[in-house]
């Protein structure tokens, strides 16, 4: 599943879906993940990058990333294909 191409994101954490008109906000780490998703980074790559930059254990972040991805799915921000 990929982050939808048409979604606009800003560094400040503002997210806009022009297709639905929905707006979202995320915290800095959330926007960092979105940027990496847009760059087509795999989950494993994202885990490596975040764990190297932030004070978090990989398995903790893996759980949180799974939860974050489920929120993106719920908000219809992921391509199902």
């Amino acid at each position, binding site marked *: 599943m990929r982050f939808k191409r048409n979604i606009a994101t800003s560094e400040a954490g503002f997210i806009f879906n022009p297709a639905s008109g929905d*707006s*979202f*906000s*995320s*915290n800095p780490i*959330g926007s960092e993940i979105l940027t990496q998703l847009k760059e087509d980074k795999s989950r494993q790559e994202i885990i490596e990058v975040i764990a190297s930059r932030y004070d978090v254990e990989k398995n903790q972040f893996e759980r*949180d990333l799974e939860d974050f991805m489920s*929120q993106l799915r719920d908000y219809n921000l992921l391509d199902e294909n």
Partner: protein
Amino acid sequence: MEKLKYERPIIKKLNTGFSNKFGSQLKNEVVTHLEGVGVKELIRQYGSPLFVISEKQIRRNYQHAVRVFKTRYPKIQFAWSYKTNYLNAVCKIFHQEGSWAEVVSGFEYEKALGNGVPGNKIIFNGPDKTDEQLVKAARNNSLIHIDHFDELYSLIKLSEEFQLKPRVAIRVNMDTGIYPKWDRFGFNYENGQAWNAITRIINCENLNLVGLHCHIGTFMLETGAYAIAAVKLCDLLRNIKEKHNKTIQYLDMGGGFPSSNTLKGSYLPGVDTVPTIDQFADAITGAILDFGFRQDELPLLILETGRALIDDAGFLLGTVLANKRLSDGRRSTILDFGVNTLFTSFWYDFKISPAQDGGQYTEETVLYGPLCMNIDIISENITLPLLQKGDHLVVHRVGAYNMTQWMQFITLRPNVVLLDQEGHSHLIRKAETLDYIESAEQIPAYLKKDTPS
């Protein structure tokens, strides 16, 4: 390179068109210390969950309440409501401050005696008093508040049999304009039942009617109801004087004053809506003073306030066990305390603070307890910072009824700690152990053989 502080990633949908007339959400107040003592340190020392009681706050509440009433009325006496919190250390603080004891069972009566309260300063309320307890209370010169005619006739019989002359009052129930009407306790005012009981007592040589008692409800938000109740008791008191030439020494207005907790379903938080103790004092003392007694006729006013004196002196510290996402996308957090420990969560939306800095981002979450039961919900919806497993929380205003109504269900009840006025912690109730729970159990001999594998 030093790593950045981690925070769970979140995304929130922005809703427009739903403006909040109360302004933006206040930042969650982080509570790292209670009375100068670190929350983390308390949990490290005494475990989690942990009840913490502030002696300073108890004394502050008590002295404030006494001052509020004494500046309005000349004769005031408080009696500590044991059922609200009968940990001996708590009771002793109230007794040190000058409070009598108000008990509603033989068990509580014995606790009051054990705490050194003289028998004549114990008020014995409630519908369940055995013959043995009535005789003991009468011999101790305690104030026996009669709840029903069966009790009245038992007491008449026992007084004759044992040649006692107990000091008694009757509990009176009445219409004060509030719902629900607490007519299951005591004798009704409007239908004449209370007057019949009074007449019966006065005609009995062995009983000494010294007071009138009412207790119109619990967590009362309407101060006017107390004024109505006070007038009705004053009316009885005057009639007793006029028709029987008997002076009643005291009016006991019971308890029922609310704490500033927020009741579930309330539109506004309790701190903004609950009347102050000053307003209750105005209503009660104003009604008695306006009734027209001469100064030397004014009865002693007894108050059995419980919740309002102890709730905000109690805190529950707990720990996050896990975070979960529910099927509808809502966030949920599982804590290490549930409705078994925090019984009053059935009717309050508590103020709950994180005990560590969680950053500026918040999310709405459901707080669940650890019990394997669907009803184990501490909060249906609360906005908190992004909590991680192992983070600590502080629940405010839990001093009333939790440490008496808590349930021993599938786990053990936790430690209770008192913070003294210098900020030192004292264990006042040890966490239960399996041995403690099983010490009351007995296994019939035929079941003692090992179960075959």
